């Protein structure tokens, strides 16, 4: 009971929220790093995965990258980068680690999504005279959207988690509240920081789930033509067929 009360007190103390070490500033750092690194990883991984999936090569790469991402400890990579010559360059070690660990879920899910597009549909589109570019843009990407989006969501949660860990080697973000709490042996602060991080991760996951539903091109079309088709499970893409989960951090 004592811890819960003290955590509540910590969280409701205004001074803990302001200043450079305050929650708002740390939250800002956390979100900034998350958004920037997620954008970089998407820009790097998604085009590669979509192209590989389109031509149907590199399946082994997609699997191996995701297995390697799971086997290599994030914490070890963060510390190795810190001790490397890059370590003296501000938040570069953190950014590199974040991007590295966001790539596997993006790559694997997008690749699988592209490959799982019904081959008959692809053949039909080709038969209609679609070029490769049209095929990707109008057929494969819309049908692969649910898995691509799952990859982005997994990567986003991963980045939030990795950013938290980056506090151990001195990076910014909400993890700093936890590490500072441990240093001060202030359990209330540790728990408060952990709660904030957990809520942030769940919020990111939740917001992206909602976005996915709203943006899914197949669902959108289904909604537009809702009326009669409402009863059948017709064109709704199998979003949950492959429960792709990245690695926890």
């Amino acid at each position, binding site marked *: 009971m004592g811890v819960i009360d003290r955590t509540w007190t910590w969280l409701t103390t205004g001074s803990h929220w302001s200043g450079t070490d305050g929650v708002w500033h740390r939250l800002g750092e956390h979100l900034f790093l998350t958004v920037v690194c997620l954008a970089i990883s998407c820009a790097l991984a998604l085009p590669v995965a979509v192209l590989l999936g389109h031509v149907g090569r590199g399946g082994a790469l997609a699997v191996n990258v995701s297995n390697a991402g*799971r086997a290599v*400890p994030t914490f070890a990579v963060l*510390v190795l980068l810190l*001790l490397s010559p890059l370590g003296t360059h501000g938040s570069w070690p953190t950014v590199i680690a974040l991007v590295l660990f966001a790539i596997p879920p993006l790559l694997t899910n997008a690749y699988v999504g592209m490959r799982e597009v019904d081959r008959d549909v692809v053949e039909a589109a080709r038969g209609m005279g679609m070029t490769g570019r049209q095929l990707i843009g109008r057929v494969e990407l819309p049908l692969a959207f649910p898995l691509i989006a799952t990859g982005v969501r997994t990567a986003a949660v991963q980045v939030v988690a990795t950013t938290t860990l980056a506090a151990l080697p001195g990076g910014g973000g909400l993890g700093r509240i*936890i590490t500072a*709490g441990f240093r001060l042996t202030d359990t209330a602060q540790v*728990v408060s920081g952990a709660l904030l991080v957990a809520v942030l991760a*769940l919020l990111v996951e939740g917001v992206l789930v909602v976005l996915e539903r709203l943006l899914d091109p197949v669902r959108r079309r289904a909604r537009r033509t809702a009326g009669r088709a409402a009863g059948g499970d017709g064109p709704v893409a199998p979003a949950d067929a492959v429960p792709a*989960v990245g690695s926890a*951090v």
Partner: protein
Amino acid sequence: MAGQNCLVTNEWICGEYLRTRGHELTDATLQHIGITLASVAIGVLVAFPLALLARRWRAAAGPVLGLTTVLYTVPSLAMFSLLVPVFGLSVSVVVTGLVLYSLTVLVRNILAGLASVPEEAREAARGMGYGPLRLLFGVELPLALPALMAGLRIATVSTVSLTTVGAIIGYGGLGNLIYEGMHSYFKAQVLTASVLCVALAIVADLVLLFVQRLLTPWARAGKQAKRRGRGAGGRPVTEGAL
């Protein structure tokens, strides 16, 4: 010649470090293995009844899967921190956290494995007079083994890697050495511990793969028959995206 020097000059690779701190590495590796084994074993023991529960009552499936997914979303540093008030600074914090993470993968894969059992096999067993328990352990579980083992491998590899984060409370196995090395900028220690940790994950994966082969001799026979039919467009992610 380079013996003592590489410790002084703080090089990444240092034979002298291995020689003088060998016992530290062994102790850390043993702690790492212990934490991983305990977490995965408890994870399986908890996941199995949960999966059976979710299969038996449809109403339970949603909450069970939802809860394990939510737990999976919580970052490891936060998870361990939240468990500190419950267990104090003890190894239980790390093991409990790792068990909670492993549940997501294990429950899903056990469910997927059980769902993949052909209805005909169940019917045949029932026709032969198998009761529910014998049906489960004698027919369904062996047939679900490939999916179950795939999940176990993913959970084990992730657990090996996540154990390092336990260093924040002093129970991180090889992570402790990485954590120490981070503060003292001891490159050889950080690199050696990191490499050992990855090696541990790979060895664990291979051991489980070997166990899986031993347990499912029929799968190999089937694979040989199917080898010719395996085209390029198959599903490449048997173990990647679980």
